[in-house]
């Protein structure tokens, strides 16, 4: 669909990071990627590949899960943001939508959205404007605004989670597995809104997805992860047409190979003096 990435400058650069959980479990083994400003970048891979950990390393939510970045750097907007408080990152324009939506169940949909504006200091009027904008993109949320989020459907919760992130007026959203547990039609709908937010509001997206097919149709560029490493990168178009990606992730082959581990030639790692 949208194949050319809008700009060439990277808003976010992840350089050869390693992540340790509990001081012992090495979850990322040198991940490097860059996210162009104004684009949609997909981070693909199977379960346990390290997609979520990469996103949480960027937003520094790993800290509260006893994880830490032990090596490498994460440069956002020209500054190293490793170890920065999640709240500071939100203030600077990076917000994460977590896997499994994580709505505040006992708060209403509207209250959920308003918590998204927690870090903003520009007054009620500006926040009310943002709320209207979110309702414009997600008219369904406006209908359900007085319902407790815990009682809304999975799709509505995903919309609430994305809308909540939008309320902080972010430059960049880290979107973790938006398709999880949703019907194909809804997935399509969510991705369409993501694409619109990207083109109309200029929000940069880095999204982790298992649904390679959908993700590569909406993204501009993509990275494929396996076992805590990036094994391949390229424009969405190239990845879509790559025979190995087709084989491993799009299920379009009858050969027995199941992962990039079987194709050593794609091993790729930026070597930084880390």
């Amino acid at each position, binding site marked *: 669909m949208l194949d050319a990435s809008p700009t060439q400058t990277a808003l976010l650069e992840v350089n050869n990071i390693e992540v340790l959980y509990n001081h012992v479990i090495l979850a990322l083994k040198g991940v490097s990627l860059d996210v162009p400003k104004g684009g949609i970048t997909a981070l693909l891979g199977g379960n346990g590949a390290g997609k979520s950990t990469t996103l949480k390393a960027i937003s520094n939510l790993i800290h*509260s899960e006893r994880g830490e970045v032990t090596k490498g750097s994460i440069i956002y907007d020209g500054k190293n943001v490793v170890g920065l408080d999640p*709240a500071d990152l939100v203030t600077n324009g990076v917000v994460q939508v977590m896997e499994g939506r*994580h*709505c*505040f169940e006992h*708060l209403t949909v509207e209250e959920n959205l308003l918590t*998204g504006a*927690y870090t903003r200091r520009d007054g009620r009027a500006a926040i009310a404007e943002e709320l209207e904008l979110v309702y414009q993109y997600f008219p369904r949320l406006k209908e359900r605004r007085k319902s407790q989020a*815990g009682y809304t459907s999975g799709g509505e919760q995903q919309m609430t989670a994305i809308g909540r992130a939008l*309320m902080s007026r972010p430059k960049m959203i880290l979107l973790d597995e938006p398709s999880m547990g949703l019907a194909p039609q809804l997935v399509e709908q969510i991705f369409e809104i993501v694409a619109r937010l990207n083109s109309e509001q200029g929000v940069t997206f880095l999204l982790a997805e298992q649904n390679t097919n959908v993700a590569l149709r909406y993204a501009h560029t993509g990275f494929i992860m396996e076992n805590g490493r990036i094994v391949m990168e390229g424009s969405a178009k190239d990845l879509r047409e790559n025979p190995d990606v087709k084989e491993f992730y799009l299920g379009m082959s009858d050969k027995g190979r199941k992962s990039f581990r079987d194709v050593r030639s794609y091993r790729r790692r930026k070597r930084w003096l880390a």
Partner: protein
Amino acid sequence: MPDTLLFAMEATLNGLTAGVMYALVALGFVLIFKASGIFNFAQGVMALFAALTLVGFQSGQIPFSHLINAIFGTRLHHFGWNMPTLLAIPATVAVMILLAILVERFILKHLINQEPIILFMATIGLAYFLEGVGDIMWGAEVKALDVGLPKGMSDTVDELTFNWFGYGFFIDRLEIWAAGIAAILVASLTIFSQYTKQGRALRAVADDHQAALSVGISLRFIWVLTWSIAGIVALVAGIMWGSKSGVQFSLSLIALKALPVLILGGFTSIPGAIVGGLIIGVGEKLFDFFMQPIVGGATENWFAYMLALVFLLFRPQGLFGEKIIERV
């Protein structure tokens, strides 16, 4: 009207006011449990500590004077002036906020993402620590606390009920005041949590720590906030109980009375704490009233725990415990 009914009514009224006192203590537990999932064992000691500090400020006592005297051989005791109550209360509030900051800084921060049982153990430690600090700071003797609240039998209630029923009810004026203050406290807490940004953030944290972090809510600030509020509630409870029965170590044991209230009302519900307190208060008095002729009294000491046991068997989440939302 038959006398028994009148006596039972009086017992009920007394139970209601006593229940408010229990509810005040339970409230502090609920606030912290809701926001951080910690059962704060130190809540009772916090009430004692707050009351001690208030008395200390009021009487112009020099904090740690015993310690200073022991080390330097001085004979310090008092500043030589008395702080007016209206000044001493805000000063005590400031101390409780400082305590909240220290608790966050030295305990909670280091136990982030630990099991609830570990946090619970930490609060046990805090309880003993605070008890000791309170003693060293202000001395261990029994102190009278007087913040100017009226005490003794309420003549108004006595007269009113005498005119209506021909029998005057005995209600402690202090407990009527306690009820009023508790009502104001609950109302302001509700308004705070429902209609303010920080209150919303507090409820968000109670629902989902991770998500709260992801939208940029600082957990550390929220913890300081809840512990401060719990400290202020402890102060109110400390004032009420301290005015009633003096400020001494046994004040911290009121926490034990809060336990059945929590089991009844649910650990996560502010209205639950109030209703639970009232039920326990009334139940205790009525049970005692009706059982006295049979077992000879002294049921007040165990009735609450027995009721809690029954609740644990049949409705473990309490009357108002937060419903676990599960979609199918």
